[in-house]
């Protein structure tokens, strides 16, 4: 059986081709996972669909969460609103918003004067380092918010497999 002979010129051409393919593959943009949103939203963009032009102030809302969360699949968070929680002046809704998650609104809590205290704790799932916003809707239609940056070492949006 006769093997196809490879001349020096042909061999150099092949090597150049392989090199070019390698270089192209290097500069090909890499995508993480198929997610609905990959870009970071600004705090105003996160709140705009909820507030709809109502008065929004950055005060009275405090977020307590770890500054550095090792695992994004479970981040404990407490959101506290300074409110007397009376029938005249209370918090009706408390939204937890995420800057980077595919779903911006992580949860909405419905509250009222029967709660006595406007404080809620839960555990979040975060897709990377981001600002977390707690937005409270007061009974007079105004909004208050507080924000906090949580550094996440390992995103929740990676496969468990």
């Amino acid at each position, binding site marked *: 059986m006769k093997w196809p002979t490879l001349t020096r010129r042909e061999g150099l051409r092949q090597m150049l081709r392989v090199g070019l393919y390698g270089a192209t593959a290097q500069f090909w943009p890499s995508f993480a996972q*198929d997610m609905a949103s990959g870009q970071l939203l600004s705090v105003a963009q996160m709140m705009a669909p909820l507030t709809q032009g109502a008065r929004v102030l950055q005060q009275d809302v405090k977020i307590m969460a770890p500054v550095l969360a090792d695992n994004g699949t479970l981040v404990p968070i407490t959101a506290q609103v300074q409110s007397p929680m009376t029938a005249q002046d209370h918090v009706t809704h408390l939204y937890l918003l995420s800057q980077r998650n595919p779903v911006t609104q992580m949860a909405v809590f419905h509250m009222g004067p029967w709660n006595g205290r406007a404080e809620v704790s839960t555990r979040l799932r975060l897709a990377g380092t981001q600002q977390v916003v707690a937005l409270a809707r007061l009974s007079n239609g105004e909004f208050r918010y507080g924000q906090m940056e949580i550094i996440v070492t390992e995103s929740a949006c990676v496969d468990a497999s």
Partner: protein
Amino acid sequence: MAFARIQWPERVLAGDVVKVRLLVRHPMDTGYLQDLLGKLVPRNVIRSLTCTWGQQEVFRVEPSSGISANPLFEFFVRADQTADMLVEWTDDRGVKGSLRQTLQVLPKPSA
């Protein structure tokens, strides 16, 4: 499989603001992750969870995929009188779960 646990302080006096802790067993699948065979796990999160105490709905939460698996919720309730706390939830598959537990409220000692 519907399973939940609810917890509050042992001694609750009338007029107290009581911290209620609620833990629900639920996978809370986001719909973005794959299983071991590389197949996308369909989204299955709790759509809505309500806590009704007596006749009053004291707490309602509508979580999304941004809440971790086996969600924990802590909230406060102003205790007036002994009544049943009824927790009900529904997820994306339409599976409903519920839990009923009596919150004992002791009368306030006259000081």
